[in-house]
């Protein structure tokens, strides 16, 4: 294949690269800067030798090493050298471009050069941090620097592209994270679509009675927020809705959502519940999900007392009308608003938004997966979520803590870390279980006067007011036993009393403790469908299955997909304060994006060199964004720069080599390949 200007043109010899004349331009003068990063790089890579070698490379005018290139003086160095030495290309060998490419492009620009006359070399993440042998790490660094120096010869002046941002935001998930983010955005004057899969918003928090460490009532702080969502003019709330497809890109996402039928007209129903009373089922017959199965409900029901929207729904799997078609429809008779529609169908809708906030939360660990605790076998073994419902004043027992037989427990065990910190289930710490276990210990003691035993591995209470709360619960006489529960079994006499075999590491012995209620502090884990959801939104999961942030420290709410942000437990276990803070941060990022009105994009788009294109159309079906059109009159391809995302797939496929990609021109890549291979 004829490549008019391959790397064959020597770096200092002029020539031209893919259409852009270098001929006649001033000679290439490169500045190379090798960063020590304190000792992060310098410990393993001999930066002096790298600098020395860089200085010998053709085109290099100056090579320097410096303690911290990203610091102000480091950046100043670049700027001054450009001005004083007349540099026209800059190479910085330091950390990953994901961290500081922007910084050094800025410094390059500050020196008066086009920022794209810059190339970054990653000798920290890709060299000093992953190798031990100084010799080979240094050799590698030299190779990478050589590659960049050869590459940067061919760089061109480019302009970043701007895409406009639509001001609407989609928030996925109506737990406390989604609610907080939506309200912040709406208060900031942006229109929000809040999508919730269930029939009511509120998420897990709505199920709790009190919240640690302050023990304020969950409903008292959550319900007003839920109503605010309902009434906010800037929020369109859609419950029983899920996202099925996301098209487009930052600034203009086109989101397809599916509304499941509720069989009730949301705009007509006032939540009077007369239909429920009238239902042919005289008594609840199906497990109530909100009460964690501890109470029974009818096929037509209100999701919970505080539900937003306050609208009933019908479960078609349970309602007789759906199974037989022959129900007396007493509910329809009872409804004076005529709000019941058995023929409602699934509905698809598309929403146009500029940014998306993911707030899909978590699920609790299935206690059956740790069978030695006896959940699902012994009736008096409960999950924490069930007990949250028991202690809740609006729960199945009106806030009374009673066993399944109605008796008050006299001794209660709480097992921490169920499913968490365990190589067989989830290796991570779920972060909130120690605190909520202490909370439950306090509430159980307060309401029943029972002896409470907390079995913990380590007591983890880092947080404002957390340690104090732990001290308080300890002083209330809760037995805090440090050790793992080995097994749980029911006493022989059959009244359901349980024996807990546990190691007490502080007392240095194994104990057998009789309890009549055992609470399993189930950990937090990614939702069962996290993988599917992340695919829909084209974001990443970390190895443990939580949605992955762009950078664990510096971009904790961003994702690798521009314009998609994370809030709450979908990114990892956290408590409510942290969830709300993160939701605020995500909303802030979205607001910043929208407020700017546009997004700067890398100028890495592809272009067709018109004279060379033979009009073969190979590239056209390859483009995932339909950015390539065929100009019939001229018989050649044409790329719409606005639609092009810069993947380069067409460039690699073009048989005549007549498509070039900015920032990733063939020449530049060949130079890099050669550069790393030309061992010194």
């Amino acid at each position, binding site marked *: 294949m004829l490549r008019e200007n391959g790397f064959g043109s020597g770096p200092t*010899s002029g020539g031209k690269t893919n259409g852009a004349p270098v001929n006649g331009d001033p000679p290439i003068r490169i500045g190379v800067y090798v960063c020590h990063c304190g000792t992060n790089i310098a410990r393993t890579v001999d930066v002096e030798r790298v600098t020395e070698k860089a200085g010998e490379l053709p085109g290099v005018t100056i090579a320097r090493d410096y303690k911290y290139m990203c610091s102000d003086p480091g950046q100043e160095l670049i700027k001054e050298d450009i001005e004083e030495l007349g540099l026209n290309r800059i190479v910085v060998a330091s950390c990953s471009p994901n961290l500081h490419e922007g910084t050094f492009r800025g410094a390059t620009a500050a020196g008066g050069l086009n920022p794209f006359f810059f190339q970054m070399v990653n000798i920290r993440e890709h060299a000093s941090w992953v190798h031990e042998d100084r010799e080979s790490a240094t050799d590698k660094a030299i190779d990478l620097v050589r590659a960049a120096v050869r590459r940067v010869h061919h760089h061109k002046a480019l302009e970043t592209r701007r895409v406009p941002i639509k001001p609407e935001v989609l928030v996925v998930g109506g737990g406390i994270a989604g609610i907080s983010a939506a309200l912040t955005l709406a208060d900031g004057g942006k229109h929000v679509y809040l999508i919730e899969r269930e029939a009511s918003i509120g998420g897990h928090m709505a199920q709790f009675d009190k919240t640690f460490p302050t023990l304020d009532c969950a409903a008292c702080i959550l319900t007003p927020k839920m109503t605010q969502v309902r009434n906010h003019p800037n929020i369109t709330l859609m419950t029983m809705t899920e996202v099925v497809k996301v098209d487009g890109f930052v600034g203009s996402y086109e989101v397809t959502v599916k509304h499941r039928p509720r069989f009730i007209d949301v705009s007509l129903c006032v939540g009077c519940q007369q239909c429920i009373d009238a239902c042919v089922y005289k008594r609840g017959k199906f497990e109530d999900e909100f009460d964690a199965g501890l109470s029974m409900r009818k096929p037509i029901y209100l999701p919970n007392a505080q539900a937003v929207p306050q609208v009933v729904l019908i479960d078609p799997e349970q309602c007789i009308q759906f199974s037989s078609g022959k129900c007396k429809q007493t509910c329809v008779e009872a409804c004076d608003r005529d709000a019941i529609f058995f023929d409602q169908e699934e509905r698809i809708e598309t929403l146009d938004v500029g940014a998306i906030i993911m707030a899909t939360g978590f699920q609790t660990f299935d206690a059956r997966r740790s069978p030695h605790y006896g959940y699902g076998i012994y009736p008096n073994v409960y999950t924490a979520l069930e007990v949250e419902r028991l202690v809740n004043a609006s729960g199945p027992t009106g806030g009374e803590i009673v066993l399944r037989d109605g008796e008050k427990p006299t001794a209660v065990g709480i097992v921490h870390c169920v499913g968490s910190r365990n190589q067989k289930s989830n290796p991570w710490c779920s972060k909130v279980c120690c605190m909520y276990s202490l909370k439950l210990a306090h509430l159980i003691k307060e309401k029943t006067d029972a002896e409470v035993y907390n079995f913990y591995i380590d007591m983890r209470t880092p947080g404002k007011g957390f340690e104090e709360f732990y001290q308080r619960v300890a002083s209330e006489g809760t037995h805090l036993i440090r050790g793992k529960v080995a097994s749980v079994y029911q006493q022989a006499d059959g009244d359901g009393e349980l024996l807990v075999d546990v190691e007490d590491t502080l007392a240095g012995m194994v104990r057998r403790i009789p309890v009549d209620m055992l609470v399993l502090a189930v950990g937090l884990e990614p939702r069962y469908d996290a993988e599917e959801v992340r695919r829909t939104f084209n974001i990443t999961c970390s190895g443990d299955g939580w949605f992955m942030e762009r950078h664990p420290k510096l971009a904790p709410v961003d994702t690798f997909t521009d314009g998609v942000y994370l809030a709450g437990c979908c990114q990892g276990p956290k408590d409510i304060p942290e969830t709300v803070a993160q939701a605020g941060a995500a909303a802030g990022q979205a607001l910043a994006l929208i407020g700017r009105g546009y997004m700067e994009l890398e100028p890495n788009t592809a272009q067709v060199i018109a004279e060379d294109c033979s009009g073969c159309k190979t590239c056209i079906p390859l483009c995932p964004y339909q950015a390539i059109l065929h100009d019939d009159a001229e018989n050649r391809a044409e790329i719409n720069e606005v639609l092009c995302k810069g993947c380069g797939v067409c460039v690699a496929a073009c048989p005549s080599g007549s498509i070039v990609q900015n920032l990733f021109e063939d020449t530049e890549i060949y130079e890099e390949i050669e550069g790393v291979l*030309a061992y010194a």
Partner: protein
Amino acid sequence: MLEQADSTVQAPQADLTSQTSAEDFEPRIVALFCNWCTYMAADLAGTSRMRYAPNVRVVRVMCSGRIDPQFVMHAFARGADGVLIGGCHPGDCHYQEGNYKALRRFRLLRRVIESLGIERERLRLEWISASEADRLRKVADEMAADIRALGPLQLSIPAEEFRNAEGAGAEIPSPEIAGETAAKEVAVP
């Protein structure tokens, strides 16, 4: 540029292999990684301080679909003992389907290189997501070990012809660059 094809410059890998004894042979592996998954995995390997074979040199492209088969041929022609292509898992490509294109090209490329006498182990395609730093480590180590066992790349046909196969000899080094390369090689201990 075609007229340069018959230049008298020696193929660089010929020099290098001849002066590397089998025992202390360290393979050179060019890694072409997509920006969104595998490059990120390499960054994560760094932040997690994992240790892996230093033989891999990463060249970043936006998507594995950007990888022109000629990049690979060129790397072999210029002395790479192995080429590793890294992209997002199927279904995860940042640009939807670039990795499928990469897979297609890879399948073909493997056949081509085998017909040129290059062992198939020298070219590898791996899907490594941004969180799979450990996988990256494993692949890098494995590949370094495999190629170390194979020994340096010995082209069964003259480098000259290989370069013709590579792409009608378009990417023939100019005397300047080859000179520079050759000069450096002398310094190899």
